[in-house]
Structure formats: C-alpha cells, structure tokens
C-alpha cells in the first residue's frame, strides 16, 4: 500500500521537475536504447540469415582447397607478407580428384550419402529460334541433383550414359521455359537450344525441366524477367568444354542424415589434409557447413552484442551515477520535508522506501523510454537493411529488470542517507 502512495508521490515529484528528470534519465535512456537497438538488429539478422541458410541444406559439407596460411613470400627488401590468392598457379596436384573422393568414400562409407560436384562453365544467353533467356551454365553430377532436391516438372534427370559419355544434354528451369517455350515445360523436351558462351556457340538438347525456386538469400536486384537461371549439364560435358581434366577446387559432401555434420566435417578435413595434402606446400583443405557458418555467424553476432553490452553497461553506470547525484541533490533540497515526515511519524524504513521508489521510478521510466527508442531505431535499421524485424524479447525483459536494479542500487545510498537523518537537524535545515 505504501508502495503505491510512494509511486504516485514520485511521479508527481518528477512531473514538477520535467527537464531535470529527463536530463537525469538521459544516460539510462541512451544506454538501454543502444542495447535494444543492437539486439533487435542482431536478432533480426540472425533469424533471417539462419532461416535462409537452413534452407540451403544442413547436411552439406563444402570442402575446398585454400592457400596455406604459412605460405609467405619474401620481397627483395626482406619484408615478408602473406601471398594473395593465386588462382592461376593451381597445378595438377592441388586439385581434389575423383580418386581422392573414392578413397574418402571407402574410408567413411556410412557417413557419406553422395558427393555433389559442379563444374562452372559461365553465364550466357540461351537461344531458341528468335527467343532468348539468360542462363548460368553449370555441369553437375547426380549427387548435386539429389543434394539440392531439384523438383523435376517434366522430363528426367541425367542418365548414367549422359554423365559417362558427356552427352550434350541440358536441364533447364521452368522460368527459362516461360521465356522460350511459352511456359510449357513439356514443349521444351527434346528441343535443341543454342547457348552463347564467351562468343562461342554450344548446342544442347533439353531433357528435363526443374522448378525454379527464388532463394531468400540471393539479393538479386535484376528484375525477375531476365534473371539468369541455372542450366545444368552433365558434369563430364562441362569438364570437357572447359578442357579441365584435373579435378575440383571445391566439392560438396552430402552427409548421411544420421551423421553429426560438425564432427564429420573436422574428420574429413583432417583426413584429407593428412592423406592428400601433407606434402602440398601451397594448398590445404578447408571444410565448412551451413551449420558451422551459422554458428560462426551467431558467434560473431554475440561477440558484437557483448561489445555493445559493455559499452551500454558503461553508459548505464554513468546514467546510474547521474541518478544517484540527482537523488542526493533532491534529498538535500528536501531535507526539511524529510524532517517533517519524521516528525509526523515516518519510520526510517518509510523514508528509505520513498527515495528508493523515486529512484527506481526514474530509472524504470528511463528504461521504458530507452526500450521504445531502441525498438524504433532497431526496427528502422532492420527495415533499411531489408530483413524481417524480430525484436529480442529477452533483451527487453532484461533491460527493464536491469534498469530497476540500477534504480535500487544507485538509489540506495541517497535513500539511506535520507533515512538516517536526525529529525531535528533535518527540520532545522535552512
């Protein structure tokens, strides 16, 4: 009961001193607002990135070669620096070969569902009679097609013969068909299309049409009309076209459903580095999965969050000291009031409660304003960045709790000072 009286008393006191109250709360407002804004942005980013990454297959492990970090060059002046990537210096023994994959498969037959292999050919224009569509031409193996869950709308996937003999067959998207075959996938089957790549003409026969999915992660700014969709070739066809007989700079291992991807990723990386790249001076194997990327991204975000939390903590500390200062001023100003209250029978505890409540009211009010401001800023920033806004509920709750705690913590000393005043000294105070 005394609490409610004290709250309304505190509020009326603060109302009559609006400017001062607002200035006092500023530190708290800024501190809380920055926490909430950063948390809102972080949370929204995490949510949308995580969900779009999860859509890309959690069982895929990407294995690639990367330059050894110990590779250094010494310049004439004797200074050492890290060599930049030198794609053109890749030599035959640097690539991941079919032979290696076979060995990995025989080593871990239960963990590997498939190898998803691609050979990038390039971007070009596909032509059929006088119609055309943009395509990204990629050679893929069967593992790729399973790993990426392509939905075939019409026709078929590549046959073993297509893959083995490097047939000039192609699988195109339904979007592609919209441009060229009036959106009728069945009409595309069996038709021969011409693809212009680097001013060279290639001819492929369409054997299948897959359903194009707009990926959430792609920030494709081009209009949906001329978006380049994937045109898949059998892997061997693409390799022959590229005159590539060496192997791959990057492969994807599709792990079995029951395999612990994070653990297996490290196993494969260690195995390959020891077995195939131990003697390689320039390159080593590096493996990652969506899961590991998501977790490293989450880790990065939480590191940022911690940094912000520390800054905000300092701001809140300063804000809290400001509140304490104002409370001390207010208590000095109201010394006679305190004396009067004591003369009327207020116990020390009542006086203490009155001023702690006042300090909590200031901090909590600052906290609420900070939360609102932080949400506004955070959600605005999230919208500008194009993510979906999802405020972090826990950080709002923690902020409210934290500002109450600041109020109690920094209000206690002044309140106690008021409570311990000698009634007659307080009454005589001028």
């Amino acid at each position, binding site marked *: 009961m005394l609490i409610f009286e004290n709250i309304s008393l505190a509020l009326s006191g603060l109302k009559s001193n609006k400017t001062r109250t607002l200035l006092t709360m500023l530190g708290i407002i800024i501190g809380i607002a920055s926490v909430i804004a950063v948390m809102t942005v972080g949370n929204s980013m995490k949510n949308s990135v995580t969900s779009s990454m999860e859509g890309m297959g959690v069982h895929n492990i990407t294995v690639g070669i990367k330059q050894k970090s110990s590779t250094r060059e010494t310049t004439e002046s004797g200074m050492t620096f890290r060599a930049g990537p030198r794609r053109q210096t890749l030599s035959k023994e640097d690539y991941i070969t079919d032979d290696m994959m076979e060995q990995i498969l025989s080593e871990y037959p239960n963990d590997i569902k498939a190898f998803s292999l691609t050979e990038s050919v390039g971007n070009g224009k596909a032509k059929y009679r006088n119609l055309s569509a943009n395509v990204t031409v990629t050679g893929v193996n069967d593992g790729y097609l399973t790993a990426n869950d392509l939905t075939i709308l019409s026709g078929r996937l590549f046959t073993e013969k297509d893959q083995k003999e490097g047939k000039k067959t192609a699988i195109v998207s339904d979007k592609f068909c919209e441009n060229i075959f009036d959106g009728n996938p069945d009409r595309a089957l069996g038709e021969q299309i011409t693809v212009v790549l680097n001013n060279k003409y290639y001819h492929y026969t369409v054997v299948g049409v897959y359903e194009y999915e707009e990926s959430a992660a792609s920030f494709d700014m081009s209009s949906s009309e001329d978006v380049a969709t994937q045109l898949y070739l059998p892997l061997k066809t693409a390799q022959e076209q590229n005159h590539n007989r060496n192997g791959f700079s990057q492969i994807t291992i599709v792990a079995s459903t029951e395999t612990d991807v994070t653990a297996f990723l490290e196993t494969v990386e260690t195995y390959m580095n020891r077995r195939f790249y131990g003697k390689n001076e320039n390159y080593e194997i590096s493996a990652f999965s969506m899961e590991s990327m998501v977790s490293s991204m989450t880790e990065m975000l939480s590191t940022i969050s911690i940094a912000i939390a520390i800054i905000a903590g300092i701001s809140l500390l300063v804000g809290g000291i400001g509140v304490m200062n104002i409370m001390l001023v207010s208590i000095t100003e109201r010394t006679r009031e305190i004396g009067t209250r004591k003369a009327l029978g207020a116990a*020390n505890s009542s006086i203490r409660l009155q001023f702690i409540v006042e300090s909590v009211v200031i901090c909590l009010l600052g906290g609420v304003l900070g939360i609102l401001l932080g949400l506004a800023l955070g959600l605005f920033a999230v919208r500008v960045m194009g993510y979906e806004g999802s405020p972090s509920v826990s950080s709002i709750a923690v902020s409210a709790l934290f500002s109450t705690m600041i109020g109690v913590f920094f209000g206690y000393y002044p309140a106690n000072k008021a409570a311990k005043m000698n009634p007659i000294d307080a009454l005589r105070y001028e």
Partner: protein
Amino acid sequence: MEDRKLMIDLRGIVKRFYIGQPNELEILHGIDLKVCDGEFVSIVGASGSGKSTLMNIIGALDKPTEGDYTLDGVNIIEARDRELSGIRNRKIGFVFQTYNLIARTCALKNVELPMLYRGMGRRERSMRAKELMKLVEMEERMNHTPDELSGGQKQRVAIARAMANDPAIILADEPTGALDSKTGRKIMDLFHRLNEEQGKTIVLITHSPELAQETQRIITVSDGSIIGERKGDGKHADI
C-alpha cells in the same frame, strides 16, 4: 489538577551541543517540568533562551544529553528509533511556526500523511482527513496545494494534520508567529476548542503575553532554566 494523569514528566533535562569540542555549549541546565493530561500550558521566554530546544525534546525529536523523560508512561530516553517514530506518529501532534506542509501535495493528502505512516487504509484515511478539514473550516480548500494557501490557512491545515491520529498531546512552537493578530486569534481559538472539547494536552510556545495569558499555566524560561511558573486565565475572552 493533581489527580489527573501525568502526561509529560521531565526530570533534570540537560542539553549540550558540540559535546567534547572546545566550543561545547550547554543550552538547557537541568529542566524539571510536569504537564498533566488535558492541560494547556504555554512556554515563554526571550529569544535564544532554549524554548524550542526544550520543545524538541518533549516532542521526541531530539534526545537530552542528561536527564529522564517519561511521556504518557513511556520512557523516551531508552526508546529506540522505531518506537520513537511510533510515538511521534500516534501520541504527538506537531504544529510549527513555518507550517512545514509537504510541497506539491494537496492539503487533504498532507492531513492524511500521519495516518498513512500509521498504516491506515485509504478510504478511512480520506474520510477522517475530510472530517478534520471541516473541523478547521478548510473543507473548501482541501484540494489545494500549500503554495495556493495563505499563512493562516496553511496553519489550519497543519493543525488538522497534527490531529490526524488523535494524539494525546499537541506541541505548537510559535504557531501564530508568522501570522497577523487576527489570524493568530483564529488559530488560538482552535487550540482552545481542541483543549476544551477534545481534552487535548497542549504545550504552546509563544512570544505574545496576551496569548500566553489565555492558557492555564505559563512557564517562563530564561537562559536554559525555568525561572518562573504562574497560572494563566485559562480561557480567552470572547471576541
């Protein structure tokens, strides 16, 4: 008068300030004073003679350096902080020269304050406060804050507040000191009514010989000692 209950019993009260310092100061030099239940006593004396210091000890706002004090049967010297606040809350009503109303708080809430500290419920509080406002003829102004009231009105609110918990004693330190004589007269009438109709024990400090003369007993303090005591007229002449 002797058969009445003893309300205030001060024995050998000494008050010193700056104890143990070179400028140690003895303000009260062994005061003995007894006030019975229902008495209306006035304390007079020159400025700086120690009247207020004595009054603060009577009101349990300050403790004497030496001496014994029993208030309505309670040993004040040995009482702890918490008991003292209870005593101030229930047994004593203070009226100050400077009113000491709580700023930014309406008159009614000011009157409710002692009841709030007593733990009385909201509705009961508000009802009693309104009754008291009627008693001091301030019911029309009860929602005004102190800065919207005149000195005399403020003092009437302060008296209503002093009466809030129906205390046995009212202590008034120059309650009319800041008021003109006509307004002071009204305040004085109010004290007489409280004394006669409700049997309140009243101790009044005043610089006005006429007002002192209206009380039942006049105690003269000089330089920290009681130098004289005489009967007053007891009742004021009606205007």
